[in-house]
């Protein structure tokens, strides 16, 4: 396995290889489903129907997709800077805290048009701040960002439990959750928005956050590929030494990338708390931060790829819930298994199908032309 990696044609690199990776993940899932004693195709039918079989199902699929877009973008922005942000979970959690605190403080005085932007700003600010500490530690003190962001997930979780149990809990409530937000702290649901323009859809958790998600995608794309800061960020990711030579400040760019990453993760709080729960609850990030790694890997860290990957993950999340309902032998955690396998096959084992693909290409291409370098000097 020590032969150097040879490049593939662009189409194979961008489309074929990722698709084969995902296919491998799904074949493995099929085997696991088989082991449990369920017909994989039978399960797949329920999964697809559950995800896109009705207006309500599509609504929920898109609602889950929204979260995956936010965390996928968060991981991707850090990836482009050569940083691995495993802290999306904690940043989403603290982002939600910021969002909730802003609403709890002002929702009695402010109208919705002022409250909503303020809460969103608070969510991004808190998310960014939570990512800024590991970023600072990496940039100035040289601590490894993978470890520090992992640690910060646990610290965020402990902090939230403390705050919810001791400080923010609604008076008289038995469960650790805050008081309900008033109407001005509620993000309109997609059903209401579409009904206003005369389109009838079934009620679901889908809310205006999905529009924010689309804006974030465009924003990240413009930022990364069409601004000098994005250029510096990507340069640092490709080659930090070259970036330094070109005059980029590694410290500043690390801070920028991580704060942006944390802010994007913070949007999960907006979707969950303002869009759905309408109060601060425990454990609302529910693994979206980790799933963001899978989304970013699968989407090759490009906003368009991330949207496609997030759609798939959203469909899996919603379809998986329906599947668990229809076939009791399968639980919702099957979706978590799929996420893990996608991270494995699209991430750690991404190059597994490469030699095989190369062999196939060489087989098809060599009789006609000599453009594929069939043989390279070995050794």
């Amino acid at each position, binding site marked *: *396995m*020590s*032969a*150097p990696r040879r490049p593939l044609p662009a189409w194979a690199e961008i489309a074929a290889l990722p698709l084969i990776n995902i296919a491998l993940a799904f074949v493995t899932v099929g085997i*696991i489903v088989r082991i*449990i*004693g369920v017909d994989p195709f039978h399960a797949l039918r329920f999964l697809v129907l559950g995800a896109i079989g009705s207006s309500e199902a599509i609504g929920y699929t898109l609602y889950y997709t929204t979260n995956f877009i936010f965390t996928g973008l968060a991981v991707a922005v850090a990836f482009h800077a050569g940083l*691995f942000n*495993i802290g999306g979970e904690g940043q989403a959690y603290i982002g939600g805290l910021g969002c909730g605190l802003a609403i709890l403080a002002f929702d009695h005085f402010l109208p919705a048009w002022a409250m909503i932007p303020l809460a969103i700003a608070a969510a991004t600010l808190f998310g960014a701040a939570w990512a800024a500490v590991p970023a600072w*530690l990496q940039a100035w*003190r*040289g*601590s*490894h960002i*993978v*470890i*520090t962001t*992992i*640690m*910060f997930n*646990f*610290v965020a979780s*402990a*902090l939230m*439990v*403390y705050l919810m149990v*001791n400080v923010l809990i609604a008076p008289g409530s038995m469960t650790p959750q805050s008081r309900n937000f008033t109407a001005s702290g509620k993000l309109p649901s997609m059903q209401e928005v579409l009904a206003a323009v005369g389109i009838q859809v079934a009620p679901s958790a889908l809310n205006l956050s999905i529009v924010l998600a689309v804006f974030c995608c465009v924003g990240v794309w413009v930022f990364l590929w069409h601004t000098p800061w994005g250029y510096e960020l990507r340069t640092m990711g490709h080659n930090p030494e070259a970036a330094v030579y070109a005059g980029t400040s590694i410290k500043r760019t690390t801070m920028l990338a991580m704060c942006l990453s944390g802010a994007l993760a913070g949007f999960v709080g907006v979707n969950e708390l303002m869009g759905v729960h309408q109060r601060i609850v425990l454990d609302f990030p529910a*693994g979206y931060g*980790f799933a963001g*790694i*899978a989304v970013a*890997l699968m989407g090759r860290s490009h906003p368009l790829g991330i949207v496609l990957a997030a759609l798939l993950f959203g469909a899996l999340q919603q379809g998986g819930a329906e599947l668990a309902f229809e076939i*009791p*032998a*399968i*639980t919702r*955690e*099957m*979706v*978590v*298994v*799929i*996420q*893990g*396998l996608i*991270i*494995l096959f699209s*991430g*750690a*084992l*991404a*190059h*597994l199908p490469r030699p095989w693909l190369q062999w196939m290409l060489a087989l098809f291409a060599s009789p006609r032309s000599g453009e594929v370098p069939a043989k390279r000097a*070995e*050794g």
Partner: protein
Amino acid sequence: MDDVLSFVFLMFAATLRVATPLVLCAMGGLFSEKSGIVDVGLEGKMLMAAFFAAATAAVTGSAWLGVAAAIVAAEAMALLHGFACITWRGNQVVSGVAINILAAGLTVVLGAAWFARGGQTPALESEQRLMPLFFPRAGDSIPVYVALASVPLTWWIIERTRFGLRLRAVGEMPLAVDAAGISVAWLRYRAVLLCGLFAGLAGAYLSIAQNAGFSRDMTAGQGFIALAAIIFGKWRPFPAFGACLIFGLLDAVAIRLQGVEMPGMGEVPVQLIQALPYLLTMFLLAGFIGRAVAPKAAGVPYEKEH
């Protein structure tokens, strides 16, 4: 006086009990990290092992078959990690994260399908578990002693054997090891397998010694605390063991302090004590308490030059 003695003894026993999986995991992780393979997946390995230990013990009625199954399960995960990181030179952190997520999902999926108890395994009878040997109140089951013995053993292997010397070399400068005609991949595979062995024992301890069965996410971050202990111990066995004991003591204290008023400062938030291992490790990593230097080649896949 007797009260004080028995309190100290019970506190000590509680610390040791909580620290056992941390120690085992940390020693396993040390082998892996020393060889240059970063292991974020300790948590997942331990969880997988805990599930298979409890499931096997419940089905066969034998605790020792449970331990064997735990080791096999953890080794399977370890081999997967090795296959991805050594053979295919994949990103070690990505592979570790994948193993954690896979284990979190798979244990519940399989548990629910096999036992239909929402991801839990049936409660184990005492003959299906590893019971305390000498002090029933202290919970001194065999893995506790194994954990205590594993520390000098790990030190001896890493510091005093030829294998250990090569292990350290491959974590610092694989090129030199390769040039000496020793297989980098095989050395690293052995390290990863040792890591799986210890993580498997740690998982078995959790589900069939400390508890009577598996429940979802029962590792609850202990794999990461073990990772923190490795860093806190600056990648050396005895200091890492010390860190595990400190973290174990913190946990034991946290349970004791629940709802207790401390003189002068009111009630200490339990969550703060629970977050302390992570916060302390961050302080250390930031260079505020000495310097923690990882093996130089950790996290870098080795590519033979051509």
